[in-house]
């Protein structure tokens, strides 16, 4: 209760601002509707209610978005293209695959960098530089070129090829926080902890598995939480420029083509709910692992 209270207060504040803004932003269209219908002397309460329930409002209201979410998840079979769950699943599978690829790549790079000064000097600047390229500029290239290579040269069917090219963008965004966090984590053991291994004449692989790796686990999970959110962004961005017909990104784009603002907002909400589920899941795994590793309860 003590935790929820401040959050609820902010939520109420947001809702008030939201509904007030909806009146202002939808007023002009509502007035046009009244003028065309020849309606005059609309009472204020009627006017407000009408601005909150337009079919294509400039700013849809909370209950409209929630209604749309309900209609496109619970009331539709999840295998139909009208179902948001279907689109969320498409985006999630690209996110998960990209997250997996990005995490493995990030950890592998960190291991190389920590164990070799040459790698540290040659790779690190490129890793940082890779993130300075705007992903929006890069995504169409990766999706188009990747898709063509996968379907043409490698002869992969279109669906897995589309999934792979989106996953590559996810991986591109998520490997960076994992690599940077893991470099820090693998270097986190104190000097005496490393000296101890030296006095045992431990091999580099023993030092890695018995010291560096477990010491890096808290850093790993912090990075994974950032990485999984970045993966979702990558998957959605990968769905935007390619005329994809499935996925939350495709829903966003289709909604904007046809001025379906309620659809855009519900896709937006679906994306943030998915992001929250992903980050919370990583957090849960983190808690389980921490308990397994004997961490002091917080």
């Amino acid at each position, binding site marked *: 209760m003590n935790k929820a209270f401040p959050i609820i207060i902010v939520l109420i504040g947001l809702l008030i601002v939201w509904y007030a803004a909806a009146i202002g932003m939808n007023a002009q269209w509502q007035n046009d509707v009244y003028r065309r219908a020849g309606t005059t002397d609309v009472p204020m309460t009627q006017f407000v209610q009408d601005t909150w329930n337009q079919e294509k409002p400039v700013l849809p209201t909370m209950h409209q978005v929630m209604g749309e979410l309900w209609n496109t998840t619970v009331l539709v079979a999840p295998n139909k293209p009208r179902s948001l769950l279907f689109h969320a699943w498409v985006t999630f599978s690209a996110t998960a695959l990209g997250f997996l690829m990005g995490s493995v790549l990030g950890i592998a790079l960190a291991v190389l960098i920590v164990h070799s000064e040459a790698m540290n000097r040659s790779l690190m600047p490129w890793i940082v530089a890779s993130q300075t390229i705007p992903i929006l500029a890069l995504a169409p290239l990766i999706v188009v070129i990747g898709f063509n290579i996968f379907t043409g040269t490698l002869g992969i069917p279109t669906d897995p090829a589309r999934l792979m090219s989106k996953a590559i963008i996810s991986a591109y965004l998520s490997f960076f926080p994992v690599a940077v966090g893991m470099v820090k984590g693998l270097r986190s053991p*104190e000097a*005496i*902890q490393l*000296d*101890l*291994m*030296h*006095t*045992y*004449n*431990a091999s580099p692989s*023993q030092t890695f598995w*018995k*010291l560096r790796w*477990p*010491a890096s*686990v808290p850093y790993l999970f912090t990075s994974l939480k950032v990485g999984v959110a970045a993966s979702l962004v990558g998957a959605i961005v990968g769905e935007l420029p390619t005329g994809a017909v499935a996925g939350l990104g495709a829903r966003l784009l289709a909604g904007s083509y046809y001025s379906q603002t309620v659809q855009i907002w519900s896709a937006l909400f679906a994306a943030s709910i998915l992001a929250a589920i992903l980050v919370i899941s990583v957090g849960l795994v983190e808690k389980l692992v921490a308990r397994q*590793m*004997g*961490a*002091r309860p917080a």
Partner: protein
Amino acid sequence: MLLSVTTASSAAIEDKGPLPATVVSAADLSLTFATNDGPVHALSNVNLSIGKGEFVSFIGPSGCGKTTFLRTIADLEQPTSGTLLINGMTPRQAREKRAYGYVFQAPALYPWRTIEKNVALPLEIMGYSAAEQAERIKRTMDLVNLSGFEKKYPWQLSGGMQQRASIARALAFDADLLLMDEPFGALDEIVRDHLNSELLKLWARTQKTICFVTHSIPEAVYLSTKIVVMSPRPGRVTDVIESTLPAERPLDIRETPEFLAIAARVRDGLRAGHSYEEHA
């Protein structure tokens, strides 16, 4: 005076090489660190030999090279010149043979391992069988009076218990030489007294050779059969005192005239090192 006195120079080893009973022998050992402020002479022409079964304390102010000497024995630092032999081997060979256990200033327990798993760490690395590991864990945990705390994590133990666990870890693989770098420096006086007398009992039971670095004169005199007094800039040995205290040492031995005489000599040696520094 009951003290038998040897000076640093008389402790130098002969050219014939170390005697069989010599565990550590240093001849003209020097170590210079290159720093941005110029070279730092951490060790300068140290000559010393430590016999099997001795309890040797190294005492001196900060920067006198006592920790550096210990780390050089452990092959954690490389000497600039001179020779250092451990059981007749180079420090590197000795380390590869796992000839010593090292206890650091901090317990350095791995927080994700239980106490028994921490004690098992060197055993895992050295490839002992599971049965052998269990047997050794039990034996060393008994030795440091930590039985019953096997499944606890380090944060659940007090500082003194953590340091005892780290001693158990150093004892687990039965190296004959135990190197201890101010192991009780961070503990309060009462815990320190207690651990000191426990350490003496442990030493008597295991017959190990112990090299012990400390800041504390009473601790050095209470524990040692030999006290090496060192002074800084350059780090060197100024006095080596053979203790005449009996092997059996209750805590109140620290009030006897014999004890106080040795302590006074240690203090004199430390003061001499300081006056040198002021005149230099």
